[in-house]
């Protein structure tokens, strides 16, 4: 259960106790700076700084971090390759035209554009990973509440969050029971087993919903749900560090706007 792993890392992160708003501001601010920067050095700086923060401050295992990057990196690799080979302009280093209406080329502008996208991908993904690996979902509910998102939405989000794990556990149990009885040995069998799995999970979810109502009734439910734990106030040092990070990245974005790889 990959979602559970990410959530667990966030719960065990050394930055868990840092104020949630500060962490969210760091992540979202970094993403915005990556998008606004015309040069590739500022997003790269964001990526390097946040990876160092994740490894040394949040104490996230480097292997886990690499694992988190694998899927988006594969996606980014193909996208960037397409950008580099398809977009043209400037000096051309290599060109191949398999059809009269289609050509692949390696040009200066294409490589520079690819580098910028790669840097933005690295910066943006790292910023997102920074939020995901240091801030558990449970802390985000408090932010949702403070952001005046309607109670109904927050309450529902909390119930869904809790129920996901209950249902996931059920899915894993049913799936294992099917695998043990060779439920996925052939394609035909796999289709049949998957349909049964969906049916069983639907019934289990329905029952879980009924039990949820009973559990809430038994505990005097009166329309109130969201009581949230207290967040730590932002530490001056962390606020100063984040401000310095933003100022440095901003300055870098302005001063290195014209710098390209080639």
């Amino acid at each position, binding site marked *: 259960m990959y979602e*559970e792993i990410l*959530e*667990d890392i966030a*719960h065990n992160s050394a930055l868990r106790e840092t104020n949630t708003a500060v962490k969210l501001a760091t992540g979202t601010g970094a993403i915005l700076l990556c998008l606004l920067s015309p040069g590739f050095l500022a997003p790269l700086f964001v990526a390097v700084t946040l990876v160092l923060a994740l490894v040394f401050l949040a104490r996230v295992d480097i292997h886990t971090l690499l694992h988190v990057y694998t899927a988006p990196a594969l996606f980014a690799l193909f996208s960037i390759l397409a950008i580099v080979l398809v977009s043209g302009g400037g000096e051309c280093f290599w060109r191949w035209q398999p059809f009269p209406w289609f050509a692949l080329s390696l040009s200066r502008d294409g490589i520079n554009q690819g580098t910028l996208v790669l840097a933005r991908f690295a910066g943006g993904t790292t910023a997102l990973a920074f939020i995901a690996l240091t801030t*558990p*979902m*449970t802390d985000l*509910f408090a932010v949702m509440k403070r952001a005046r998102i309607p109670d109904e939405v927050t309450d529902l989000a*909390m*119930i869904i*969050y*809790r129920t996901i*794990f*209950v249902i996931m*556990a059920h899915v894993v149990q049913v799936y294992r029971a099917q695998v043990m009885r060779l439920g996925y040995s052939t394609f035909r069998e796999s289709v049949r087993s998957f349909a049964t799995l969906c049916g069983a999970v639907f019934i289990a979810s329905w029952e*879980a919903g009924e*039990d*949820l109502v*009973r*559990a*809430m*009734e*038994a*505990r*005097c*439910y*009166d*329309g*109130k*749900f*969201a*009581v*949230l*734990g207290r967040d730590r106030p932002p530490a001056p040092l962390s606020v100063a560090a984040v401000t310095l990070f933003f100022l440095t990245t901003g300055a870098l974005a302005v001063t290195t706007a014209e710098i390209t790889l080639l």
Partner: protein
Amino acid sequence: MGRVILEARDIWYRYPRGMEAIRGISFHIWRGEKVAVVGPNGAGKSTLLLMFNGMVKPDRGIILFDNEPIRYDRAALRELRRKVGFVMQNPDRQIISPTVFQDVAFGPVNLGYSGEEVRKAVERALAQVGLQGFERRPPHQLSGGEKKRVAIAGVLAMDPDVLILDEPTTGLDPSGSEDVMELLDELHHQKKTVIISTHDIELAYPWADRAILLTKGKILQEDVPDIAFGDPELVRMARLSMPILLELYIELKKRGFSLPERKPKTVLDMLNVIDRAFQNRLCYTQPGRITVLDVDAPCPVSLSEWRSRHPGVPVGAMGTRAKQRAEEERITPDFTYGVIDKCILRALLGEDSLIVTTASMAGRVRERVQEFSREFNLEIEVVTARGLPDDR
């Protein structure tokens, strides 16, 4: 025993799909009592217990709480559910919030407590079940035993008079089951009425003050456990098996051995029965000493320091705070359940032992040891642990 707190008068209930679940049941439960409702799967135990906090309304008959018939309007049910807490069999179905704090706070928030009152209620409930420091943990990261404790804390936060637990040890390992039963003992000691449903007769037999044997929606027997479980015919009819100690006692009796009248509930009791049967003495040596270390004492003795001065002496931790203290001092207790009896057994072998416990439970240790010493004409010494090297 105080007055009657819960009473059922000729209650009947039929499931919506037509099967009759409860068929004319009448009984009462005294305030401060520990009751086990025992029966096979499908006997109607859970349905019966759900009637006590108004989750299920009987088709016929009445349920009384504190000598008043239960009313089923919204306000009355809220008040009833505050006083009669229900812990479901599967804690995953009871824990509804994304963190432990939020889940335990659920009841108090809905009862309209202020923020500060909610915080205090949650802190108290988590301390009662020994889960301080778990406030921000999400339930899916907890073990089965911890989830069960969160579910119990969620009910305790509303400070109920009666605590009902449906199959409290289902899905737990033996150590987890022992911890939960020990916790129920502690809660009972805090004057709570505790009712459990179970089909684990070995668990119910030594724990309960009274057992209600249920099968096919009817009461077969209702008495103290050694009588309720002592009739082989009734036990067979209820599709259960007799507790092993009780069965052994009955078999020895059938063979004409002279046995004490009190039927054995624990290994210590059984040892007494065997010694009596074979006319042995219970103790052949100078009995060992039991030292009590009170974790609530104003100047508590360091457990690790005591242990280093008394190497090899077994340690029993009795109660949640005692277990936490042992954990804090990185000491693994030798006993965590049935601690007093296990230490008496050691004393009978001439060995010393230490019981770590709270101030309120320390009195219980002395009472139990004195009662045993009087009954068997022995002298087992109980002393308080001190920080000085002269307490042996």
